[in-house]
């Protein structure tokens, strides 16, 4: 007898994202993909329920961003209201442990704040649940075991079975999020509950500075034909002859740099 597929309780953890160019608050891309996956699951397994969970401070900007998720067709979002700079992990863990869903879906990495990508792991450790990262699809849920596809580099997929409850994290391999509609987003409710704020001690000690762009190796193309130019453009930048200088005086360092620039033809 084939075991009956039954509906699952899915909690999607969502964060306030940050647009890469303008820095405006928005629904985070990976979290929105996670919600899209959950909504697909809801369609696939009748009787499933998707809930949204966010821990953080409430503000006009963050509320607009969170409503971006609600515009994908949900009626409410649970907001664990915390002061700025609080640690989200204990609050989330406590909330999830109180009424455990079968699946927790989250983006792999936040777009603002630390963005360390550690939250799913820390949460899994606290709750003692298994974690699958790089989720591409949930194929079926049977008898408390989910069969999922994990995305590997270069389009490969790995089929895994995971015991529920479990935490699944998604990245760019998950299906793209649907459009967020203004009407449902405006109507939906933010159910805010205050939780004990545990200040993030470690974060408070950190110094935050805007990230600098990593230097990119220049590619100097001396191509005569279009074909060669195309090949050069498509090729990966390769180093090869780099060297690491340690414990040198500023003069020696400067000389080495000057020498390199002359070799590369930047200086003549």
């Amino acid at each position, binding site marked *: 007898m084939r075991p009956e597929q039954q509906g699952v309780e899915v909690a999607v953890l969502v964060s306030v994202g940050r*647009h890469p*160019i*303008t820095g*405006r608050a*928005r629904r985070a891309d990976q979290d929105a993909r996670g919600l899209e996956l959950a909504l697909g699951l809801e369609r696939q397994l009748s009787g499933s329920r998707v809930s949204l969970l966010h821990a953080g401070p409430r503000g006009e900007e963050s509320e607009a961003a969170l409503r971006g998720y609600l*515009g*994908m*067709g949900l009626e409410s979002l649970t907001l664990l209201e915390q002061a700025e700079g609080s640690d989200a992990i204990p609050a989330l863990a406590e909330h999830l442990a109180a009424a455990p869903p079968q699946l927790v879906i989250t983006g792999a990495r936040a777009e603002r704040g630390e963005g360390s990508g550690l939250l799913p792991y820390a949460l899994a450790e606290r709750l003692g649940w298994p974690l699958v990262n790089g989720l591409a699809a949930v194929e079926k849920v049977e008898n408390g075991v989910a069969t999922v596809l994990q995305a590997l580099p270069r389009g490969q997929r790995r089929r895994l079975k995971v015991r529920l409850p479990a935490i699944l994290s998604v990245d760019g391999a998950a299906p793209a999020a*649907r*459009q*967020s*509609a*203004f*009407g*449902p987003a*405006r*109507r939906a409710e933010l159910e805010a509950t205050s939780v004990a704020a545990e200040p993030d001690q470690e974060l408070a000690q950190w110094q935050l500075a805007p990230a600098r762009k990593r230097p990119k190796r*220049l*590619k*100097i*193309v*001396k*191509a005569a034909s279009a074909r060669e*130019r195309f090949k*050069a*453009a498509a090729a990966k930048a390769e180093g090869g002859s780099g060297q690491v200088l340690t414990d040198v005086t500023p003069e020696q360092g400067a000389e080495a740099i000057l020498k390199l620039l002359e070799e590369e033809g930047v200086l003549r």
Partner: protein
Amino acid sequence: MLETLLPILIFAALGLAVIGAWRRVRLWRQGRPSAVPLLKGLAAMPRRYLVDLHHVVGRDKVMSNTHVATAGGFVAAAVLMILVHGFGLAQGILGWLLLAASATMFVGSLFVAKRRRNPPARLSRGPWMRLPKSLMAFSLGVFLITLPTVGVLPEDFGSWILALVLAAVVVWGLGEMVFGMTWGGPMKHAFAGALHLAFHRRAERFGGGRSTGLKALNLDDPDAKLGVETPSDFTWNQLLGFDACVQCGRCEAVCPAFAAGQPLNPKKLIQDMVVGLAGGSDAAYAGSPYPGKPVGEHHGSPQGPIVAREGKALVDAETLWSCTTCRACVEECPMMIEHVDAIVDMRRHLTLEHGNTPNKGAEVLDNLIATDNPGGFDPGSRLHWAADLNLPLMADVKQAEVLLWLGDGAFDMRNQRTLRSLVKVLRAAEVEFAVLGTEERDSGDVARRLGDEATFQSLAKRNIATLARYRFQRIVTCDPHSFHVLGNEYGELGGQYEVRHHSTFIAELYDAGRLAFAPWKGGSVTYHDPCYLGRYNGEYEAPRNVLKALGIEVKEMERSGFRSRCCGGGGGAPITDIPGERRIPDMRMNDVRETGAELVAVGCPQCTAMLEGVVDASAEVRDIAELVADALVARPAAGATHRPQAEEVI
């Protein structure tokens, strides 16, 4: 016998017509309320009908005369018939007048019959094919029964069989012309049309005015419906307008999407709305269908959805997304029905409630929200194209005679050439101008036409707040879409500006003697009217005057001026990209080819992009600003020296 029968017949038909009218009015009143002055509208109706409507009908002289004879004859005959045969006032001149009126109507109906012998594809068939016969039955029947009344024939002429036949003909005529007028026959157009003209939602259009800006949604009221989901979400006078359609198909003949084989036919869309307001299926529709969509598979009801989330309802979403909002159908409609308003109303629901803008729509809207431009470019790079031009910024100068609105073309390398040319022209004419630079945002045109009223209003309000900080006399822009939105749609949100298209402004500068041109040496030139400059804003002359000043004699395309064919770039159509059998810009470049012109002058970044995207085109595409800049008689620029070829760095 007829003397006793006729009053009964006439008053029975009138009574039934009144009941039908009451039922029809109830159908329209399912719509949402809309404040229009009722009595004033009714008082203005005859003039609107005789002047404004016939101005449009008069573009086809034969049909116009036919309509004057038939409709004029009918109205006169109907009134006189009630007096003569209903109340028995046969003495004196009334009977003779009735004879004249019915004879005129009969002559008109002969022309209607001639038209229906080999009707063009745009005309609907079905019940419309019997209309000339019904017109003849009415006019001939009334004519014959009046002959004895005026004494041309003896009272007891013919036998009772003849009287019975005559009575049957009159019953047929009365049935179609009086009973059918309110119960849904072809003559419904007269009843609904007259009231539609009286209660039109854009009363400014009558008397030579222009009203083209979309109407804003009320977003402050959380209970207000976002757009139109069901037919009853239209305002009652919109429903009335749909019901007024005569199915003449002039809209179908000019619709670029229909011609391209995309699944849109404005006439069918309006008929579908009529099906929706009365409830039922579209199986009875007897005109050209939406290309690729058979008739009879869609059905709707006043409270049912127009577009289903899944499956089929009244209309498919891709029909609504095929529209380029070029307004050719509205311009051509003799009933002055507002197709574009209805389409955008329905799109608003699809975007704001369903969250279902097709293809690149969602991405473009997200970009507009996050970066204030549809391409998702860094807003800080809006002025990069002008790095060497040293443009005066409003933030520095605070006031200027002219505010140059760049539009999103500032991010497009092709349009940057136009903008640079325009700057050169303004400098040559020594115009005191400034730009907003990075403070400028998208005008909201695309967002609004994709149905995202929320993003439109957000962009508009922020632009209005920015503009309020500076003093300027007028805005000049090379983008007719910005021109239209700033000039016609910001007013409702609190921004009143005097806006000029660059062609208008250049024409003014030339007339003021501030520009001088070298004689034109190029080949033959045609001009493509952008929809948002021409039909939306009525500017047909200025671009042609500029071209004339350049010494260019424009070889007009067959479809130019108010009949110009759209380039396919409006209304977000390139973004939603609904497949068809042909491409709209290809058809337009074929129009250009037919003139034999080597160059097509345009005045819109969208048109430039669409027409330049045509493969194997016979003509070059140049913006008017570029032509003017090239012809300027001024000091030659020194920067054009030959530069050594640099090594390419990626």
